[in-house]
């Protein structure tokens, strides 16, 4: 039985990831990358919209996609903390994208074969796109990790910085996805000459509405227009 909160969590992961990736627009290291990150953000936003629409129906109070995106406070968001963290440098963004998209692909694969037909349809669509996100971020992690001394140092440091936040992805019903996820990540790390950080501190709480300050700052920017001009369209 799929619950409202589960769907909302997936939707929030995708929405917040989209917003963070969108921040790279006009700031990426090269023009092709600018376009790539905007496209990946668009894929995430598309999945978020489909999931919000479904969450609204499951909840049954008539909340729309915009209500979920623009009219909730930070404590009402159910995304994992990994996606809300500030972008950091390009290596941090690529580490985040690799960890998230590898998880999303495994999760969507499972949901696509699940009994909830609506969720299966959304997941079957999204997993094809996730495969491209995994491919793109893997290539960058390998290129930077197995690059110059400086790019290697920064890629390893990006991985180290966000690794603690990956544990939250595998809480609850997705616990058994960590093993296949690690296999995928280890393969990329091996090629990228990176070292998998030791497991230790594992921040948690996102799925219960406990977030870092970074989410509040992100929401302030994302919601300001809608809150200042309720119902505005253009």
């Amino acid at each position, binding site marked *: 039985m799929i619950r409202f909160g589960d769907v909302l969590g997936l939707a929030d992961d995708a929405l917040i990831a989209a917003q963070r990736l969108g921040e790279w627009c006009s700031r990426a290291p090269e023009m*092709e990358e600018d376009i790539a990150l905007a496209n990946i953000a668009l*894929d995430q936003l598309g999945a978020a919209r489909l999931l919000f629409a479904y969450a609204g129906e499951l909840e049954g109070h008539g909340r729309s996609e915009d209500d979920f995106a623009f009219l909730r406070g930070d404590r009402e968001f159910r995304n994992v903390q990994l996606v809300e963290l500030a972008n950091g440098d390009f290596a941090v963004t690529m580490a985040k994208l690799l960890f998230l998209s590898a998880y999303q692909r495994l999760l969507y694969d499972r949901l696509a074969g699940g009994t909830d037909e609506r969720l299966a349809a959304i997941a*079957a*669509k999204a997993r094809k796109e996730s495969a491209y996100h995994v491919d*793109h971020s893997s290539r960058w992690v390998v290129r930077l990790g197995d690059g110059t001394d400086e790019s290697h140092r920064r890629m390893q440091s990006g991985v180290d910085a966000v690794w603690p936040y990956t544990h939250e992805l595998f809480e609850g019903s997705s616990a058994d996805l960590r093993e296949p996820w690690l296999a995928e990540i280890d393969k990329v790390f091996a090629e990228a000459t990176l070292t998998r950080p030791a497991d230790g501190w594992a921040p948690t709480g996102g799925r219960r509405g406990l977030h870092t300050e970074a989410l509040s700052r992100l929401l302030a920017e994302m919601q300001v227009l809608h809150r200042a001009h309720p119902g505005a369209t253009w």
Partner: protein
Amino acid sequence: MTTAQVVDLVAAVRDPELRVVTIGELGIVRDVAVRDDRVTVTITPTYSGCPAMDMIRSDIEAALHAAGFAEVAVDTVLSPAWSTDWISEPGRRKLAEAGIAPPAAGGHRPVSLSLTVRCPRCGSPDTEELSRFGSTACKSLRRCRACLEPFDAVKTL
């Protein structure tokens, strides 16, 4: 107007991002149901976040209104998920003629070796990928090593 004619009318709507092909050739029209002067069209998105969907919806409505149908509804279905395999042969030919490399066949199956994308201008198989993500969600950016022209390619999905 017969149902077949209405289907043709809908299928002839152009894709706003790939102007050389129709939505029929792109394979995104899933159903057209006509009841009296009411038409219900069902389409499927190429990508979840495809920004062209709203425009496609309104283009379908405009085309049917112009043909005299007062009530038009455009529904969206996700399953089965669109695949580039659904782009018709004429659609592939038109893309290539417009300088956009059509996708490889078999997007739903794993391919163990990377298949070459031929240059839509000179036909050379010696091309390289510049970026996996191109000017729209459904395209990548490539360059031909033989004639040196950059070109768009529809990504296999």
